[in-house]
């Protein structure tokens, strides 16, 4: 006889998770079809997917996804380079920290979306303004974590490196950066999640293509099914991107420190 459901769920987190998701989707499906019965305001999940696949070709969907991912990649990469450089500098060089920290701290509480209008004034409605806003959203968490990581490099590591005549770039790349990497990794993951949230807002305001635009267009055409499909698409892609990043982090950082 099969073991009782409870025991099997306890043994397999994946099975329990799948059951949780399935129950939730089923509840939504039933509520939308039997209780609400108005697909114009709340379509069932199956309806949403069917409508979206009828109205959009796979090529169109792929195009929107790729355009959005391109913007994220550009803004996030710039933020990672700038954030890690400035963060490590602030963490290791006291003079730089005293000089720059008040400025960074002053800009940090301004929400990234509040930069959208000024980004449009500075960079126009093209790609640059969206990349700039994503850059700002991702920069601050990366800067903070790199700064903390670099400031907290154990003195023992630095002393022993110095005693072995390791200095200059070698000290930076072989001691300081690897030692701050676990902290930086946390910042990178937070930043990637924020990038997606900021991207959608930037695309809602002004974009002709991209996943955020897809949501807005569905609203203008009154296609709730497509809007829900697009919302889920953005969520799933953001989740997959996060898993990809954390897998990379585990491969590179996990070797010497669990994350």
């Amino acid at each position, binding site marked *: 006889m099969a073991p009782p459901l409870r025991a099997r769920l306890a043994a397999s987190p994946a099975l329990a998770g799948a059951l949780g998701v399935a129950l939730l989707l089923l509840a939504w499906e039933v509520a939308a079809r039997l209780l609400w019965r108005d697909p114009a305001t709340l379509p069932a999940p199956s309806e949403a997917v069917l409508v979206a696949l009828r109205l959009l070709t796979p090529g169109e969907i792929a195009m929107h996804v790729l355009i959005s991912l391109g913007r994220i990649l550009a803004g996030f990469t710039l933020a990672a380079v700038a954030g890690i450089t400035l963060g490590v500098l602030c963490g290791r060089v006291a003079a730089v920290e005293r000089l720059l920290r008040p400025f960074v701290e002053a800009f940090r509480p301004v929400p990234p*979306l509040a930069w959208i209008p000024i980004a449009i004034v500075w960079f126009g409605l093209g790609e640059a303004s969206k990349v700039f806003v994503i850059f700002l959203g991702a920069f601050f968490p990366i800067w903070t974590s790199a700064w903390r990581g670099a400031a907290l490099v154990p003195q023992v590591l630095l002393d022993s490196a110095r005693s072995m005549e390791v200095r200059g770039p070698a000290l930076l790349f072989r001691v300081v950066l690897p030692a701050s990497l676990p902290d930086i990794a946390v910042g990178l993951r937070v930043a990637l999640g924020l990038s997606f949230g900021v991207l959608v807002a930037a695309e809602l305001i002004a974009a002709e293509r991209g996943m955020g635009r897809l949501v807005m267009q569905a609203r203008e055409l009154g296609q709730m099914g497509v809007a829900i499909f697009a919302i889920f698409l*953005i969520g799933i892609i953001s989740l997959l991107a*996060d898993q990809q990043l954390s897998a990379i982090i585990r491969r590179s950082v996990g070797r010497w420190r669990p994350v």
Partner: protein
Amino acid sequence: MNARHALPPLALLAALLLGWEAAAAAGWLTPIRFPPPSRLATSFRELALEGFPFGAFLSTHVVATLRRVLAGYLIAVALAVPLGLLIGASPLLDRMASPVVAFGRSIATLSLLPLALVWFGTEEAPKVFLIGFGCFWVMLSNVIAAIKLVDPVLLRAARSMDTPPRDIFLRVMLPAALPRIAAGARMALGMGFVVIVGAEMIGTSIGLGALIMEARTFYRSDITMVGMACIGAIGFALTALLGLLEARLMPWRRGRQT
């Protein structure tokens, strides 16, 4: 920071402001893109005394924004804390909920804007909904983690002393989880401020998010910049306030980092 250390950043700040002002006066910077600092000061006065759009004073915008953020935030906290405690305390529920929570956090809150408009109209409700949605998932995942990460030694010790389950929950688990829950509450508030700007961009002209968008369409980037500074200042002040509250509520944590 002593006076000697405060000097370099102050000098840099003064140099930047002077350079900016001079470059604008010399015509190197277009005022629409980089309104000079003196202009920003006048705009701030204009916004505070005459309002922008006319009659909508800075205080009106601030109150509207604060009310929306706090309403959404408090609803989210009120829902997420009990739910999170329940899920965190039950390993089975936690396993079932974990993909849902991970996905909920991954949903871009502002992508729900069209749904919010269809479901809740264009008044206050859709804005409160969006803020609440954004805060909810941050809060929920933090409460669940806080309960799961309670040191099992504490629980075993309490059980070995025959503490009734109710007391274990109220007097051991809850206090032990509180610092992480508080950290989550701070993160959720930050999320509220990220979302509010987007939520106010459509269907209203009152609120700081609406203000900065409206100002752009009138080519008043000076007002946009003043509005951005105000959102930043309020976000900063509220986070500081929560920090103080935390120190009050959890005196045993004073001076420690969460």
